[in-house]
């Protein structure tokens, strides 16, 4: 088991490394392709005319005249802390984890991300709980009696939910509960630490609208897994033992039916962290999705680089947890 975890862990680091190389490569390519000085992408302005010695000095200071591998190395070691200066303003101390400084937003990339990720994480975790509970419940009851009224109602609902995109459900929910009924406060994020209730109220609608679409997918998945599992020979064995229905369904059926869902959940959750853009914009939440959209619009490369790496790490960690979990759940997986 430890060996398995170590191997997976090494794989994880490798993936993050590759992602960082790729994003770093894009960082290198962008100035080349647009024939702009890298200084522009880095600071958002080119303070001196091209070819002037001051610009050369600035390029030298940022290290853009170094060979690319050296620059990558500096970027990597820089993550563990460095001092940043554009030569015009006061130098900034950038501690670990340092992804550079956004001259557009006048803040450390790590600070920007640090402000954004609790929003995204709150959004994702809450939505995940909602869609897991909802999807699995509906799916289980549908799958136990396929063709019954419960099943048909559940699956019709799921079909409807799948076909409703967030940019539709989100505004509708807002309109209904905030603007018409006034049951919930308006959009925007309230930090959990300052006001738990406010946090909950502010997140409820984003959770629901995000969970909606996933819950529908999970309901359908659980249902088909459940139908398959309940037809397995070992369920027949469980019945032949004289077990009661609840034990059969919960202990023997659900356990097996949910195992594949664990995998899919891990991947979905990991992916979601980097892709809550629409939900965040609809509900005016300044999370990672919002941050990345904003930095793309402003061509703010350090932020894009930082967000990409954070999203990759999240995805990889989620996958790692799933793999370990899977090996724990399914004894047949040799570790």
């Amino acid at each position, binding site marked *: 088991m430890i060996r398995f975890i170590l191997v997976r862990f090494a794989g994880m680091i490798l993936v993050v490394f590759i992602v960082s190389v790729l994003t770093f490569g894009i960082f290198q390519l962008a100035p080349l392709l647009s024939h702009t000085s890298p200084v522009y992408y880095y600071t958002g302005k080119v303070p001196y005319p091209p070819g002037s010695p001051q610009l050369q000095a600035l390029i030298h200071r940022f290290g853009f005249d170094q060979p690319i591998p050296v620059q990558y190395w500096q970027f990597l070691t820089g993550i563990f802390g460095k001092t940043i200066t554009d030569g015009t303003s006061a130098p900034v101390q950038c501690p670990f984890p340092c992804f550079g400084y956004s001259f557009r937003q006048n803040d450390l990339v790590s600070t920007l991300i640090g402000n954004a990720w609790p929003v995204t994480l709150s959004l994702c975790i809450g939505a995940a709980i909602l869609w897991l509970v909802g999807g699995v419940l509906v799916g289980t009851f549908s799958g136990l009696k396929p063709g019954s009224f419960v099943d048909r109602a559940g699956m019709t609902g799921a079909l409807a939910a799948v076909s409703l995109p967030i940019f539709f459900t989100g505004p509708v929910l807002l309109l209904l509960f905030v603007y018409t009924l006034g049951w919930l406060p308006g959009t925007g994020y309230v930090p959990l630490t300052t006001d738990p209730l406010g946090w909950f109220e502010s997140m409820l609608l984003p959770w629901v609208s995000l969970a909606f679409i996933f819950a529908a997918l999970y309901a359908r998945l659980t249902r088909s897994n459940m139908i398959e599992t309940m037809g397995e020979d070992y369920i027949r064995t469980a019945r032949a033992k004289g077990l009661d229905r609840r034990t059969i369904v919960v202990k023997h059926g659900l356990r097996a039916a949910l195992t594949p869902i664990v995998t899919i959940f891990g991947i979905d959750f990991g992916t979601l962290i980097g892709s809550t853009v629409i939900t965040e914009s609809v509900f005016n939440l300044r999370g990672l999705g919002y941050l990345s959209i904003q930095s793309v619009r402003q061509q703010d490369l350090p932020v894009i680089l930082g967000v990409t790496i954070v999203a990759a790490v999240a995805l990889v960690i989620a996958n790692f947890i799933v793999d370990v979990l899977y090996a724990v759940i399914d004894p*047949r997986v040799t570790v």
Partner: protein
Amino acid sequence: MASTTPAPAVATARDAELFLSVEDLKVHFPTEDGLVKSVDGLSFELRRGEILGIVGESGSGKSVTAQAILGLHKGSRARISGHIWLDGRDLVPLSDEEMRGVRGSEIAMIFQDPLSSLHPFYTIGDQIAEAYRVHNKVSAREARARTIEMLEKVGIPNAPGRVDDYPHQFSGGMRQRAMIAMALICQPKLLIADEPTTALDVTVQAQILELIKDLRDELNSAVILITHDLGVVAETCDHVVVMYGGQCVEKGSVDDVFELPEMPYTWGLLGSMPRMDRVRQERLTPIPGQPPSLINVPTGCVFNTRCRFSDHVEGRRCFTEHPQLLPTAPGHEVRCHIEPEERRRLFELEIKPKL
């Protein structure tokens, strides 16, 4: 010597109390294509300490019968009629919940494929102990001790070290032993084994059959052994029911049925298997044609589409009149319109020399 074998063993067994008696059992499944008559009017009886073999080709209703006895169709769309008397109680009208107390404790079942019949996520020990704890109020420790004892009894080497293994860590033969241990842990009075050795090779099959016989002797249980291997029946069983198209077409003691089978389907079954104990034939003789549809069961004899002896019956009775299951010798019943003397003559002249 062949026709009349009033074996004293049969006579004494007859005096013993009937333990299981299936009367006119029908199991029909309504489907989109029509009503599937998987079992249609099956009757047989069984005493304690006896092993009854049920043979027949794939789809003849063997497994459906077994599952009906265990009440596994309850809660499904299956329509069941007739009686299943177990120790004087009729199981057919019982509800699923009432049947739960019978399953595992009074009737236990083992299935064909031991790997898929065991839950992949729980240890062998857990699964066996669970079967014990449903019907006995004991602590987990006691159940575990009993489980180890059972595993030892069915011949798992180093049972205390293997109880915590998962099914995939057992070999095929060991898995089937574990299934048997699970089935027998509550000392059921009736054990149903549905093709317990079909997935296993001959050496393991021999071990498992030996084990079933030993346990029958020890617990004096009744056993129903479902198989399509006539060799297994000859080796293990006391009585045999030959099923075809959801009906019993011949039944009797194993000695009688193998010595003097009288139903053309039984002849076909015996004739189609290659036999190691006979001179090798150039060609095998399969039963021509396909098994009957269970939705549109042929009128007359179920076997008439494939029977080459229907011209031994006057008129076209084979195609118009459903033959009754009639006794031909004490304890030996046959469903065929051909006169008994004629059947015996046909067997001696045409069938036996070719077996």
